[in-house]
């Protein structure tokens, strides 16, 4: 066998290896129901959950953050796309723009009865859809 053939085989093997590790590491967008099932099966793979924060009027319900007691403990309730509510704990300070976000994506896994998030991605109302201009009424 020529060296070039060995090289080509090695490259193909490496590429397959890369594809396999990728498919093993790939995460999924799931609902809380599926996240609970995964945890019940004993799998602690991390998943993505997309949800909204329950509000009554402007107020978000169930936020718990008291930095003077513990700056690294933030808990909230998230309602996923199937309208299942779940208590989420995030062992980090509360993201400052959390109150404004419309949609929240969390990464993590269920542990006991709570979802432990290690990453929070917030989708905030973008400034590009801003429908008001400061001073617009003043000059009229």
């Amino acid at each position, binding site marked *: 066998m020529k060296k070039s053939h060995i090289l080509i085989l090695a490259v193909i093997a490496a590429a397959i290896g890369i594809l396999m*590790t990728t498919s093993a*590491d*790939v995460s999924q967008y799931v609902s809380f129901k599926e996240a609970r099932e995964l945890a019940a099966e004993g799998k602690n793979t991390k998943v993505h959950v997309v949800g909204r924060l329950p509000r009554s009027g402007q107020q978000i319900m169930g936020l718990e953050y008291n*930095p*003077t007691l513990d700056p*690294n403990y933030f808990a909230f309730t998230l309602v996923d796309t199937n309208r299942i509510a779940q208590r989420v704990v995030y*062992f980090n300070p509360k993201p400052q723009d959390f109150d404004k976000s419309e949609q929240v994506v969390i990464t993590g896994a269920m542990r006991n009865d709570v979802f432990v998030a290690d990453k929070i991605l917030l989708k905030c109302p973008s400034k*590009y859809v801003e429908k008001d201009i400061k001073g617009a009424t003043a*000059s009229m």
Partner: protein
Amino acid sequence: MLNTFIGDLGHASVIVAFAAACVAAYSYYMAAKDQPLGTTDLGWQRLARGAFFVHGAAVLAVIASLFAIIHGHHYEYYYAWSHSSNHLPVYYMISCFWEGQEGSFLLWIFWQVVLGFVLIRYSKKWEAPVMAVFAGVQLFLVSMILGVVIGDVKIGSSPFILLRDFLDIPVFKTDPNFIPKDGTGLNALLQNYWMVIHPPTLFLGFALTLVPFAYAMAGLWKRELTAWVQPAIRWTLVGGLVLGVGVMMGAYWAYETLNFGGYWNWDPVENAVYIPWLVLVASLHGLILWKRGKTGLRTSFVLVIATFVLVLYATFLTRSGVLGNASVHSFTDLGLSGQLLIYLGVFAVLSVALLVARWRSIPVSEKELTTYNPELWVFVGATVLCLGAFQVLVTTSIPVYNAFLGFIGIKSNLALPADQIGHYTKIQLWMGVGVVFLSGLAQVMWWQKNDKESLTNSLTVPGILTLLGAALVILLVRYNKLEMKPVYIVLLTTALFGVLANLSMVLTLLRRKVSLSGGGVAHIGVALMLLGILASAGYSNIISGNVSGLVYSKEFNEELNRDNVLLWRNEGAPMGPYEVSYTGQYLDVPGVPGYVNKELLFRTDDEYKAVARGDVKRGGKVYYKAGDTLEILPENTYYRVEYKEKKSGKTFELFPRAQANEEMGGLLASPDIKKFWDHDIYSHVSATPPTTGPDWSEVTEHVLSVGDTIYLNDYFAVLRAVEPAHQTAGLNLKEGDLAIQGDFIVYGEKRQYHIHPMFVVRNRMVGRVPDQSEDLGLRLTFLNVDPTAGKFTFGVSTAQKDYIILKAMEKPFINLLWSGTLLMALGFGMAFVKRRRDTSATLPATDNDAKPLRARPVQRPRQVA
């Protein structure tokens, strides 16, 4: 007045630029068509050049119009309104230029115009076919900012759109000529000097990948399957240099400005540049292989084409909105997805088709490479780079698979790996190992005749030194009670080998000819970068762990990472090897070095102005006297944090900053970094109390006489005197007005505070000016005077004391990464200079120029010393 002229001028210039690019592309195509390289149809070529000059002039006019709109604060235009504001300094106006997608396309177009001119001037016989490709790319790029609607199809997004056409809000119905007074401003995170130079560097890098691609296309088209390599190498070297430096500038900006705690986050936007850079470096090695060993030409073709197509793919990824949830900072979707796909598709299909058609005619080397051929190891190294790029590509494209499957009707819910850093690291780390080891090995072999004996001889010294060095480092790491994973040991050893083997070769070459050592120098740089990454990322150490002993969490008792610490204002707290205290909020005052304590500034109705309450001085020099009005930059608050090393007693202070920004949603925090030669201390604020100011309690009244003592918010305080008010700058006192103030001395943790609430009588009306100290969480109001009894009534409100939540970490040997980057850039530069000389030397032999009248490139008088 609504100024529509500039916008119309700009938009017209865009259309002219587009039309001229079409003409240039077609005429260059006709000039080169059906003729061998070296002969051109001069008529078509003249027309093409003219068209390209018109194109360049029009692009400059577009840029000038857009800049005039931003610089002149013409907020009737959406671009100025959404990216700029009145208080933005001019140098940041340059960055608002490319904050938006249209502006960054424009920047890219601009660089390609510049490169096009260089090629017209210097590429000689290659001009027509190369410029045909060039102008073709230009016409696609310009179409992205065309802003023309044909039927229902919108082509491009114009930067010259009026605000009233973009926003559908009532004010424009009542007054179509309404112009906002101020813009919404530049993204605070982009207000950084790196953001002035990072995007131009990056887009120059993108533009430079087009040149080797255009040469490869021209070579395939004109069946000049080998001659294109020579010019392509030089351009690839410049591209590798500029793109590499651009990527690292972005990394440095992220390190300084964002607060994820590092310089690289594997965000798709970062990956989108990293992937083509890796492939570009691989293609460079392929080209050099052909140049020296007459092997690897097909690989070079594939890689040069792949680099350019990957740049197009990166453009599609970041600008089409396909990334959606996956990226925090990709551009907003302008509805250009279709257009971007066509752009990507046209060039991918054309180039691949042309390559396939010529594949059999591309020369291949008959000889079999042996283990003693350096070419083999260079080839393996390039393959390793491509595999590394492949992994990042496969993972970064996950959102694309979802979109594609959704498009053909299959629901897919794949998400990026939850632990991205872990995912990428486990492959990229081995790529690094391969790259540094092979770079050392191949570099040594490259410059000598190899057999078993000579190879052993030249590898012995670097090999032994590597093993000794690695053993020493491992011992030191153990001595410092740190773990070292086997894979880290492998990376350490190979990277050391990479440094030492390349160094031994560079030292040998220095004696022969300095200019040959560019490759070696670049390789040393890359190996040092890897060592810097290994140390700073592998051993990044969070020193702000919660040491209060309070564990509030009810659900879990296990050891979780608790990386943030709460610091009360003026109270010290232990943190790692330091005693840390937070000592107040500061502002940036232009003209005064460092920052100025907010307590020294009396804020006025104008956000950007304040009155000094005391002298603002640095050392002996007084910058402002008490009562002076000074300009301030109110957006950023700097939190002063004092670090005192427990062992040595040495102190330093950091000013991590944060900006309360409603539009961006909350608090934008940026770190401050203290640099030591062997490590950085990096710290940022992760939360603060509500930035709207403290929540003051209900007022309680106290009746006091002069000399009375009282506890205020748990501080001991004395009413020292009641006296005529002396800080009345903001009051505009007139004759007949009466102003007195109470003088309280409050004993705080570290020092005494004077608080002066004022009581003003004017025309029998009473005014009260309260005074407060945020340090103490205390606000006093002078409520009433009882002159007969000598009693004074004061109102006291208190607030929770100010605090910050801080995260701090140590980054060991991060300087290796930055210095490695500089060395790498230097190496690229040296190699470029050497290749330039090579070409000038060989020019007379190969130069059968179609235009003999054209002057040859001016040779630099500077020669080898």
